[in-house]
């Protein structure tokens, strides 16, 4: 691409010079940092949890930076949904459930009666005493014949 006159003229415009006092200020700041770095410090090291939080913050900032408002809005929406969900949760007992109360006397009697009837029904019936067959004594054949004749 061949530069035209206007492009060439733009490129020839001189920039404002850097303020002269900056040189000493910046180099002095660097020298001070150098001195601090060389001085042995007795300060306690940064606690691990603080370092972890700092790293987390830095990473999250980098991740969320392109649209922090959108992320914050999404987080707020989730909190609202969670709140609505918790508020709408049914805390009443089931329809059949009643608070426990001591049973009345009539109820206890009815229960006892039912229990007794059930026991009667379930018990096996009284059987008559088994009839013992008389031991059969073998008889003589001739004796039977005699009885027939006499009859």
């Amino acid at each position, binding site marked *: 691409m061949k530069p035209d006159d*206007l492009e060439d003229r733009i490129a020839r415009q001189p*920039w404002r010079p850097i303020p002269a006092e900056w040189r000493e200020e*910046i180099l002095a700041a660097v020298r001070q*940092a150098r001195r601090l770095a060389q001085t042995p410090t007795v300060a306690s090291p940064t606690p691990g949890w603080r370092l972890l939080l700092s790293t987390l913050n830095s990473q999250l900032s980098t991740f969320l930076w392109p649209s922090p408002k959108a992320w914050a809005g999404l987080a707020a929406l989730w909190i609202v949904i969670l709140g609505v969900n918790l508020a709408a949760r049914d805390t009443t007992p089931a329809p059949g459930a009643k608070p426990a109360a001591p049973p009345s006397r009539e109820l206890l009697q009815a229960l006892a009666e039912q229990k007794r009837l059930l026991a009667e029904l379930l018990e096996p019936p009284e059987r008559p005493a088994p009839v013992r067959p008389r031991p059969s004594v073998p008889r003589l054949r001739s004796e039977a014949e005699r009885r027939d004749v006499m009859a």
Partner: protein
Amino acid sequence: MQMAAPEDLERLYDEHAPALFSFLLNFTRNEADTRDLLQELFLKLAQCPGLIAEARDARAFLLRLAHNLAIDLFRRRGTDAKQCAQLAAEPGPLFAPASDPDERAFREALAAALGELPAEQRAVVHLKLWEGLTFEQIAELLDIPPNTAASRYRYGLDKLRQRLRPLYAEIK
């Protein structure tokens, strides 16, 4: 931690600080930010002298570092593109004062026109026009594809031309 020798930093400052100053001033359009970023850059160089020692092209490396620091500053502040554009639109003394009124008018118009460009187009235009870098060098410096660098330059320059052509035709 081993730090760079003061004389090395002084030499680096004398060689590169004017170019870094104009780049940062054009990119941030804020003199206080430019000052802070320049100091932060030299502190980094002092803390990590190996950084510059390993660089093939010291100027390109320092411009890249300056650009990254400026981007980090915008992120820390949460400065979005709209705020950047508002800041950039405020005219500031970017160019050297000129005694000739036509030249002065052209510089003021150029400063205002640069302020209307998006920051990333402004960075590419600056590196191409005032640092004389190729699109490949600009692409490497800004961590973008060369085609993107070329298109940003073309769009930026077209806008400058549109804005400056009437005045240029008048004073030429």
